[in-house]
C-alpha cells in the first residue's frame, strides 16, 4: 500500500516539475517533496539495506555506508498527511496502547502491526529527543526481531560528552559494517561530509533569506522542512534541494515578493506542524499571517571535518536543543523571535509529547521575557479524530487580533 503511494507520488511530482521547466513558477518545495518521495520508495522498496532510526540518528553517516535510513516518526506523519492514520491508531488502541502516548509513535506501531512497515536490516535508536520514541524503537526491534543499536545522547556538551558520543558513533560504524558486510569507505564518508557542509552553508542562506520582510516562504515551502531535510544530508540531493530553495528565495527577495500575499503578521511555529489536513494554514494566509519560521528550520551546528567527522557529528547532535535543558531551547526561540521579527508564537501542544509539550509553561515564560505572546493550541498533530477546527480557528483569529491590537497601541494607532 505504501510503496505504490510513494511510486505514484514520485511520478506525479516528476511530471509537475517537467511542466514547470522554462517557467518562473516556484519549484523548490516540489523538488524537496520529490526527494522525500524517492526516499520513501527506497525505504519501502526492499532493495537496499534499511535502518529505522531515532530522530537524531546520523543519517549522513549511515548514507555513506550504503544504508537507507529514516526516523520512524516520519511514517506517522506520512500516514496522517495522507488520511491513512486512523486505522493505525485504532489498531494500537485495540492492543492496549494508551491514548495518552504520542500518536506519532502509536501510528508507527499500528502500521507495524498491520504489516505496513518494511522489515529493517537493523535499528538505530536515540535516547533523545524522547523516552517514548526510544520505547517505540525497542518495540519495533522486538517485533521485527532485529538488532538495535542505541545511541545515548546526554544533555551536556562538554568535551567528555563529545568524546563519549563520538565513541558511540565509531561503535555504530562497526555495528553497521558487521550487519551490511561492507566496511566503511573513509573516502566516501569524507565526500558525504563535504556535501553535508555544503548543504549546511546553503541552508544558512535559505534561512537568512526567509527572515526578509516580507518573507519569501510560501505557506508550505518550509513545512516539515528542517527535520526532514536531515534525512538527505550527506547526499548531492540535499545540496541540490537546498540550492533550489536558496535560488528561489533569493529571486523572490530581490523582487520584493512575499510568500504570503499582504504579509501583516509574522509568526513562529514551534515543534511540529499539524500533519493531517486542517484549515489552519489557509486561515492564516487569508488573514495575512505568515509563519516565517518553524523552530526546527535552523542550523545550530558548525561545519564538520570531513577527514575526521565523528567528533563533528557528535557536536552537531549535541547542538540540537531537543537534546538539551529547556533553557537552551528557550534561548534559541528567543533568538529566532528576534532574528525573524516575529509578532507571536504558535505552540501546538501535541498531546502525548513529554519532552516538547511538557515544557509548555517554561517556553511561554521565556517568550514573555522577550515580549512575544504565545498561543498554546491543545492539539494532537497526528490524530484527527478529536480535532475541533472551529474552536481552533476562533482561537487563532483572537490571537491575531490581539497581536494587531498590541501593535496598534504600540504605534499609537
Amino acid at each position: 500500500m505504501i510503496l505504490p503511494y510513494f511510486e505514484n507520488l514520485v511520478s506525479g511530482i516528476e511530471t509537475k516539475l517537467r511542466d514547470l521547466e522554462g517557467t518562473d513558477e516556484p519549484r523548490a518545495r516540489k523538488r524537496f517533496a520529490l526527494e522525500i518521495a524517492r526516499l520513501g520508495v527506497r525505504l519501502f522498496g526492499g532493495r537496499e539495506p534499511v535502518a529505522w532510526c531515532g530522530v537524531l540518528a546520523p543519517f549522513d553517516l549511515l548514507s555513506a555506508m550504503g544504508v537507507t535510513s529514516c526516523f520512524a516518526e516520519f511514517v506517522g506523519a506520512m500516514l496522517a498527511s495522507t488520511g491513512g492514520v486512523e486505522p493505525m491508531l485504532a489498531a494500537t488502541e485495540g492492543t492496549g496502547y494508551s491514548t495518552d502516548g504520542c500518536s506519532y509513535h502509536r501510528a508507527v506501531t499500528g502500521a507495524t502491526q498491520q504489516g505496513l512497515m518494511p522489515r529493517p536490516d537493523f535499528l538505530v535508536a536515540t535516547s533523545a529527543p524522547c523516552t517514548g520514541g526510544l520505547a517505540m524503537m525497542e518495540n519495533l526491534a522486538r517485533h521485527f526481531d532485529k538488532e538495535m543499536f542505541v545511541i545515548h545522547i546526554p544533555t551536556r556538551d562538554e568535551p567528555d560528552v563529545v568524546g563519549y558520543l563520538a565513541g558511540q558513533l565509531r561503535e555504530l560504524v562497526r555495528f553497521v559494517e558487521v550487519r551490511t558486510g561492507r566496511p566503511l569507505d573513509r573516502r566516501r564518508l569524507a565526500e558525504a561530509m563535504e556535501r553535508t557542509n555544503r548543504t549546511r552553508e546553503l541552508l544558512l542562506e535559505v534561512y537568512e533569506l526567509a527572515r526578509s520582510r516580507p518573507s519569501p516562504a510560501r505557506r508550505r515551502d518550509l513545512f516539515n522542512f528542517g527535520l526532514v531535510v536531515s534525512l538527505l544530508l550527506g547526499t548531492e540531493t540535499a545540496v541540490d534541494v537546498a540550492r533550489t530553495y536558496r535560488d528561489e528565495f533569493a529571486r523572490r527577495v530581490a523582487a520584493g515578493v512575499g510568500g504570503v500575499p499582504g504579509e501583516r503578521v509574522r509568526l513562529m511555529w514551534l515543534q511540529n506542524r499539524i500533519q493531517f489536513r486542517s484549515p489552519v494554514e489557509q486561515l492564516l494566509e487569508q488573514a495575512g499571517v505568515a509563519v516565517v519560521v518553524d523552530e526546527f528550520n535552523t542550523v545550530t551546528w558548525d561545519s564538520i571535518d570531513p577527514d575526521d567527522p565523528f567528533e563533528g557529528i557528535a557536536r552537531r547532535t549535541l547542538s540540537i536543543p531537543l537534546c538539551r535543558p529547556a533553557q537552551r531551547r528557550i534561548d534559541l526561540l528567543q533568538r529566532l523571535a528576534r532574528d525573524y521579527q516575529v509578532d507571536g508564537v504558535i505552540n501546538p501542544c501535541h498531546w502525548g509529547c513529554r519532552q516538547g509539550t511538557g515544557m509548555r509553561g517554561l517556553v511561554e515564560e521565556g517568550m514573555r521575557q522577550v515580549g512575544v505572546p504565545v498561543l498554546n493550541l491543545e492539539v494532537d498533530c497526528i490524530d484527527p479524530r478529536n480535532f475541533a477546527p472551529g474552536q481552533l480557528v476562533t482561537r487563532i483569529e483572537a490571537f491575531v487580533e490581539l497581536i494587531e491590537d498590541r501593535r496598534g497601541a504600540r504605534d499609537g494607532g
Partner: protein
Amino acid sequence: MSTERIGYTCAYTPLPLLHAAGFIPHRVLPTSAPQIPDLAGAYLHDNLCPHVKRVLDRVLAGDLPDDLTGLVIVNSCDAMRRLADALVGRSAAQVALVELPVCGGPAAVEFLTIELEQLQTRLCAWSGLPPSEDRLRQSIALYDELAGALDRLRERAIDGRLDGGFGALQASVNRAVTRPPEESLAELRRMPQQGGQGRRGVPIYLFGNLLADVEALELIESCGARVAGEDVCTGSRQLTGLGPAPDGPLLPWLADRMLARPPCARTLPERGGSELAALVVQGARRCGARGVVAHVLKFCDPYLARLPRVRQALRDASLPLLVLEGDCTLRSLGQHRTRIEAFIEMLD
C-alpha cells in the same frame, strides 16, 4: 551524623555518594498532601507524569525539609528532565542533574563514572567536605546493610510474618529513604522478629513505578491479595544492595553496579538481554503468584509503551494481569478497590 539533606526523586540515585558527601539522602515522595495546591501546571504541561508534577508542587509550595541543601535529579526520562528544568531558578535548594545511560556496556560505565565524579565534586562543594574514598566505602557498606535489612523485612512481609504486612514494610522503606540511614538501620534492628498471621490471601506479583503510600499497599492487601513478590520503584527498587566494595577505585565500580541493576522500564537491556515483559513473567513465576498487578502512573511513557507486550507475555504464561493507573493520590487508588477485589476473587 549528618544533619543537612539532599533531596532526590529516582531510585537510580547513588545514595552512598550523597551520604559520603555529608548529607542525609531524602527521597522527595509525591505522597498525597491535599493541602498543597497544583502549582506545577504553570510550568509543565498537564500531560506530564503526576510524580514530577507533585514533586514540583511540593518544591514550589515550600513543602520540603528546611535543611534541604540541594536536589539531585537523575535524567532517567523526559519527565525527570523537565522537572530539573522547572526546578532551576524556582527551587530554594540547588539542583544537580545526573545523566543516566539508557543501557550498560563499558562506554556507558565510563561515562557514568565521569557523571558520578562531577556529582561528587558538586556535593562536596555544597557540604564543604573533601571527597573521600574511605567515607564512600563506609557509606556503601552502610547502605548495603540497610538494603539487606529491608530485604529481610520484605521476606517477612511476603511470608506473612510482619505485623501490618506490606503497608508496614512500605512505612519502613519510606522512613529509610527520608531519614539518616544509621537511624533507619538501628530501627530495623530493634523491630520484633516475629509477627504477622502467616501467609493469607491470594498471591500476586506487583510491579510498576511509584506506589509509596502505605495506605495503598494496605488497600491492596485488604482486598484479599498477598503480595508475594514486587518490583516497584518505591519498593524493592528503592534501596538495592551493591555488594562488597572493591579495594580499587570506587566510582567506576559504583557506575557499573548502577547500570547492572535489573532494568526498569526506562532502561534498555544490553543486546540480547531480557525485555521488561520477560522479567515480569519471571518475577511472577518465581514468587508463585497467581496473578499480576501493574501499578503505573498516568503519562509514564516507558511503562505505557511496554504494557502491551507485558500483557501479551503474561497471557502467553497464563498469568492474569490487572493494570491500575495512578496519579499519586490515594483517591485514584480508592476508586480501583472494586476492580482489585474482583480481580482477586477471579484468582481465588
